[in-house]
């Protein structure tokens, strides 16, 4: 995608891959240069390890304790697997939160992401006004999820919101409490989240489609394939790298879901999510850090799935 702005010597066969003469190259550098390079990588790496990976490791360790967040944590806090046992068998909110994340993922994967791809495919045809449509669908992407939450509260608010007013649903006997009814509020905030997600996916997919070799399409057309077949048989397979990216984004977004639910009602009453349970346990008046960390470990383990998928793709393209 970025190849349009590469420097002049693009014909060089090594461009984009590691140089073959490892040792030779390395020896050209002076000792000073090598030290500088070491620092260039080392300082950011150190920050990354101290502020991201060390806390991650600490969370894992804390999950085996009953630490209450006050003072120091020591061996007397060690409780083995107790937090995990309780989480899986005693804590009534773990499985609902887990399934809400699953529903979130399913919704994004089967509804929002396909809509985004569909929009991208439509806009990939050189229609007049493509730029306009693209701008409109893209607009929510720049907004924070907090603002998205506020904007949609104006739609969903029970007596003052647009939806209930427009459809005459504000009287006591037929009022729909979009954000307060635990059977529907998850879907209400999913609509809000999708408003942003669709544009995001569309933009990414569209850029991928633009880079597809047009001769592929021509060839398919010559073979008499219709648009539908062309997309699924020819374009979609060629887009494999982008498809992976889209899948990873969708999964990570579903696992990270937090802001809208937190804004709406602090993630209770049908809006429980793993990220919110972590926060409400660890960062609360009672500060159940040990237990909150156990939930964090579960979220971490699940997140490693898409992360590994993504990294293996990166590795494949790099080596």
């Amino acid at each position, binding site marked *: 995608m970025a190849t349009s702005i590469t420097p002049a010597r693009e014909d060089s066969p090594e461009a984009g891959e590691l140089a073959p003469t490892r040792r030779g190259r390395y020896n050209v550098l002076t000792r000073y240069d090598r030290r500088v390079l070491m620092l260039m990588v080392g300082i950011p790496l150190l920050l990354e390890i101290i502020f991201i990976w060390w806390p991650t490791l600490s969370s894992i360790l804390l999950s085996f304790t*009953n630490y*209450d*967040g*006050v*003072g120091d944590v020591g061996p007397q806090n060690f409780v083995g697997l107790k937090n995990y046992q*309780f989480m899986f068998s*005693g*804590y*009534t*909110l773990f499985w609902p939160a887990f399934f809400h994340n699953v529903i979130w993922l399913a919704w994004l994967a089967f509804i929002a992401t396909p809509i985004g791809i569909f929009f991208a495919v439509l806009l990939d045809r050189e229609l007049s006004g493509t730029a306009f449509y693209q701008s409109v669908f893209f607009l929510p992407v720049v907004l924070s999820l907090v603002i998205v939450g506020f904007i949609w509260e104006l739609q*969903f*608010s*029970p*007596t003052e919101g647009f939806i209930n007013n427009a459809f005459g649903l504000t*009287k*006591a006997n037929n*009022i*729909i*409490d*979009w*954000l*307060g*009814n*635990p*059977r529907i*509020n998850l879907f209400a905030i999913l609509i809000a989240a999708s408003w942003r997600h669709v544009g995001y996916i569309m933009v990414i997919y569209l850029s991928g489609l633009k880079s597809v070799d047009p001769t592929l399409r021509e060839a398919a057309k010559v073979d008499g394939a219709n648009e539908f077949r062309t997309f699924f048989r020819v374009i979609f397979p060629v887009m494999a790298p982008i498809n992976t990216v889209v899948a990873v984004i969708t999964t990570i977004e579903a696992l990270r879901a937090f802001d809208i639910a937190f804004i709406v*009602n*602090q*993630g*209770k*009453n*049908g809006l*429980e999510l793993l990220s*919110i*349970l972590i926060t*409400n*346990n660890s*960062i*609360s*008046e*009672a*500060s*159940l850090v040990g237990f909150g960390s156990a939930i964090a470990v579960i979220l971490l383990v699940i997140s490693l799935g898409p992360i590994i998928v993504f990294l293996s793709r990166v590795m494949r393209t790099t080596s």
Partner: protein
Amino acid sequence: MGDSRGPKIAGSSERILIPGTGIELPVDFDLSRRDMLKIAGYGSLAAFIAACGGTTPTTTSGSVTAKGGSMSIGSYLSDAVPKKGLQDVVDAFTSANGGTKVKVNTVDHGTFQNTINNYLQATPEDIFTWFSGHRMRFFAKKGLAQPIDDVWNDVKSNFTEGFAASVKGDDGHVYAVPTSYYPWAIFYRKDVFTARNYKIPTNWDDFIKLCQQMKKDNLIPMAFADKDGWPAMGTFDILNLRMNGYDFHVGLCGGQQKWTDPKVANVFKKWAELTPYYSPAFAGLTWQEAAQQLRQKKAGMYLLGLFVSEQFVSGGNADDINQLDFFPFPDLGTQYDSEKALDAPIDVYMLAKKSPTLGTDSGQAKAFLEFMSKGSSQITYWKASPGAIPTANDADPSQYPALTKKAAQIVSGAKRITQFFDRDSRPDFSGPNAMQGFLLRYLSSPKQDTSSLQGQMQSFWDSLTPE
């Protein structure tokens, strides 16, 4: 009632003075129940008495406070009316205390409470606003609050023994200055009741009948809002208190009674008789929005704390606040009606032990606490709003707004007083993903069989690390 003010202590443990009213009540108290009460908060007047048996460590006064300099307050008073009240008191303090510079850090009510643990451990302000009861003792026990026995020594003559007990930690030290309290009751607009000729209901049947009538009259009978999760606890408290009695309620909050008890099921059953009259879509409303329903005459009644009046003041129409009135929760026909128990939480100011500036500001901070202990300061604070009742003995009741006077009376009529569910029980049980969530789940279909819900409540309680 103003004639018998001033320091007065019930000599015998058989009688007690009601804070701020001068009314004496007979109480029976059994010291063996002390353990139970320890967990549930000095929630009752009886407990107030019991706790005054402890010795107060004494400090020589005189060098406690300091003038000039600076200090800071961490405040959850983020709504417009109380925020202005605090600012007024702070200004008065600054000019009275040699120009002490006061920095106020206002954080919204919800976030302040959720992050209080982190806040107190990190770099808190010198003074912070908080709640009495279990919630105060919780942080005292964790070593995050600074004892203020010296301040208390200077000001204790201005408080009844009941308040004295409410600010004591488990270790006998004093950790807070109580500055206001307020009852929970059923609020209504006088003009609406007059216009429609509604009568104040004194028993449950009349109450429900009134609800039905209001519904016919196209009013929302009971304003109700539970988006924030905690307001529903107020209804649970009062029903449980009146149906199962003070002792059972306190035991339930403290874990001695079981959530699976059929008595709890009865509370939920009774509650279900009331829920059909609630504001539509209440789980998506904030208490402020429900208060506006009452103010705008869309709703007839509202069970909430006295702070509901803030929304009547901030509405801008002076007549609104004059029309606001309340009546006590109707009798349910049980043996516990006579307790007249109700929630009357006490709000306090505390010193944050880990405040990085407390070392230098200690004198100023203590001067502020002493300032807040004066009736005149408390009246300054609440002049703009009748949202709570001053706690100081020398607060002049003739300066109270009418609603405040009446509120003081209803508390004095109660033989048993609780703080509020989330102040009487442990914080990890009353949070958003615990009791708040359980009550919301109940309210989503009140007619349900609650036995599985009660089972979950109990198993959640059992899972908590013993305190």
